[in-house]
């Protein structure tokens, strides 16, 4: 039998059989033994196994006497009966079909899919943190409150703002929180405004967060260099504009170089600057949004501070604010009084707060991981994070720009956007390039985003990847560009290696099957 490592049993070496090696992708992907896996419900109740041994019900126990009739169910048809080992194998096999950052390169642009260090995981699992109950009285939760206080101080310092709320559950809720505070600030001044300016290079969540707050969105066009220009802002800015939402670097991976001037224009007319911190990884320890003139910014701990992301979450989206927005911060807030920590939960203490966003204190487990990373890296390490993230993206840019169209010549920071323009004449599109990368063993980059670029491939390698991994990815991308020339049909028919090959995404979207039913034919 063949083996991608080249190892052969002696008997094969001696017999001189020419082993047929499976094709090995640039990321080392090859074929392997994978199990077909039925849904648990398809096993049915036939074998009658269970994973637990329940004692027999007491002699005189009659559920009909104990429970009201609306809570009684006579039986459940088709509930599968399975032993523990069958269930464990089911989920373990499914997990082996998966691709995550612990299995391979995951350059999903704008998502910052960096490695989540196991040291942060270990600390989050310390029983004192992992088992802390959210209803513990503060005197029994001093350690957890101190950790929240420290993280709040660290995030405020890193971003250059006065204070930070840890409550929001993820980036989008952070945006919502930030815009709610902007709204509350305007309303408190008796100047409720109507519009928010959002450049065309923003994340789709930005206009959504504005609309959720009752604002109309005015889209601003970025310039030919991919940047937002002060003149564009000046033309759109008036006394009815509540704020502008800017992501820097933007979704093209380009640094917004005119923030100081834009801040001056917006502030002069009484508006505020919202900074979308989704791409903070590029600036960490090097530049602070608070110093640039932003008034409010959300973090994505699951991006920048290496907490789990993409199915492993939950996310966490703290929001930092400048001095003038501090009274509007949501509750709870951790305060330090002498040597003790206390949770401010009562609106009477903070009469201008926008209120509570969610139950309890936020996604606490993520706070532990994020603070662990910040303390482990320190200021120098955080700065190196941004520098290496930018270096890695520019390395990929330099090595791929001859094979793929680069729509913007402007310098890239932490991510780089290519297009399928050079491949399109052969009929190979961005979607096909992305699918073919799977056969090489790489997670595809973000595709068809940002919308200002036709056929975008948005690559963000992050700082945690080695040069060897990046070289493997470059080899894969070059091999695909070459294959698009010589064998476009092969690219269009990919991927072939995963347990499920190319899916019919159109049919899946037009006729989605969202629920399994007994007797259903599962393809």
């Amino acid at each position, binding site marked *: 039998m063949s083996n991608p490592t080249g190892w052969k049993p002696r008997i094969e070496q001696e017999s001189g059989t020419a082993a047929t090696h499976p094709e090995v992708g640039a990321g080392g992907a090859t074929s392997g033994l994978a199990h077909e896996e039925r849904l648990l419900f398809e096993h049915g109740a036939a074998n009658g196994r269970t994973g637990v041994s329940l004692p027999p019900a007491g002699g005189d126990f009659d559920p009909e006497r104990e429970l009201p009739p609306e809570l009684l169910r006579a039986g459940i048809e088709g509930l599968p009966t399975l032993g523990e080992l069958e269930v464990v194998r089911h989920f373990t096999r499914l997990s082996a079909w998966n691709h995550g950052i612990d299995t391979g390169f995951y350059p999903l642009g704008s998502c910052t899919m960096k490695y989540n260090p196991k040291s942060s995981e270990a600390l989050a699992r310390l029983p004192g943190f992992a088992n802390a109950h959210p209803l513990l009285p503060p005197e029994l939760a001093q350690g957890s409150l101190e950790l929240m206080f420290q993280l709040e101080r660290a995030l405020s310092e890193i971003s250059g703002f006065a204070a930070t709320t840890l409550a929001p559950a993820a980036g989008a809720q952070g945006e919502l929180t930030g815009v709610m505070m902007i709204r509350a600030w305007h309303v408190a001044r008796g100047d409720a405004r109507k519009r928010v300016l959002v450049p065309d290079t923003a994340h789709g969540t930005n206009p959504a967060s504005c609309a959720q707050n009752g604002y109309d969105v005015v889209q601003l066009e970025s310039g030919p260099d991919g940047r937002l220009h002060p003149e564009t802002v000046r033309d759109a800015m008036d006394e009815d504009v509540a704020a502008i939402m800017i992501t820097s670097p933007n979704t093209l991976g380009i640094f917004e170089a005119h923030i100081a001037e834009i801040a001056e224009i917006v502030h002069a007319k009484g508006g505020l600057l919202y900074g979308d911190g989704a791409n903070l990884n590029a600036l960490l320890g090097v530049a602070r949004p608070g110093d640039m003139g932003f008034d409010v910014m959300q973090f994505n701990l699951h991006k920048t501070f290496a907490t789990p992301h993409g199915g492993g979450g939950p996310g966490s989206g703290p929001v930092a604010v400048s001095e003038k927005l501090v009274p509007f911060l949501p509750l709870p807030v951790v305060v330090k009084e002498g040597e003790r920590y206390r949770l401010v939960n009562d609106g009477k203490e903070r009469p201008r707060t926008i209120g509570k966003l969610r139950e309890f204190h936020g996604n606490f487990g993520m706070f532990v991981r994020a603070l662990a990373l910040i303390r482990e890296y320190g200021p120098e390490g955080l700065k190196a994070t941004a520098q290496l993230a930018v270096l890695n993206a520019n390395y990929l840019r330099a090595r791929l720009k001859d094979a793929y169209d680069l729509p913007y010549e402007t310098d890239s920071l932490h991510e780089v956007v290519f297009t399928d323009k050079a491949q399109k004449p052969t009929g190979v599109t961005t*979607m096909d390039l992305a699918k073919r990368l799977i056969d090489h063993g790489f997670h595809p980059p973000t595709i*068809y*985003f940002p*919308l200002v670029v*036709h056929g975008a491939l948005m690559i963000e390698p992050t700082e945690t990847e080695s040069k060897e991994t990046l070289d493997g990815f470059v080899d894969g991308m070059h091999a695909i560009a070459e294959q698009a020339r010589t064998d476009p049909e092969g690219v269009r028919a990919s991927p072939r290696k995963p347990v499920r090959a190319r899916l019919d*995404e*159109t049919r899946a*979207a*037009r006729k989605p099957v969202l629920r399994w039913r007994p007797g259903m034919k599962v393809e």
Partner: protein
Amino acid sequence: MNFPDDLKYTKEHEWCRIKGNRVVVGITDHAQNQLGDIVYVELPEVGDPVKKGESFGVVESTKAVSEIFSPVSGKVVEVNDPLSDAPETINEDPYEEGWMIQVEFSSGKELEELLDVDAYKKFVEEEAE
């Protein structure tokens, strides 16, 4: 790419067919081609007001979600309801069966601002560069 001579066009890639005091509106062959397989469409209801240059609905393809902009101001008088069950019609026949809404326009003046077929063709070419 097919661009019928008898239609008017917008820079957002909608087409309009003028019928008396109404316009029939859809998206162009170029637009459906750029979007790829359309999987979902959201349209307004009869009686809804629309405003020139403002979004009246969305089309979603396997690539992206895009807004559709009204070429004129007025009131929606008819909606192509079968599209919600068969959005692929927009890919297959963008100018006939794939029409989206009919608008009773409030000012004939706005029609003069629409592009004719040559101007639209030129715009598409320029955009491709």
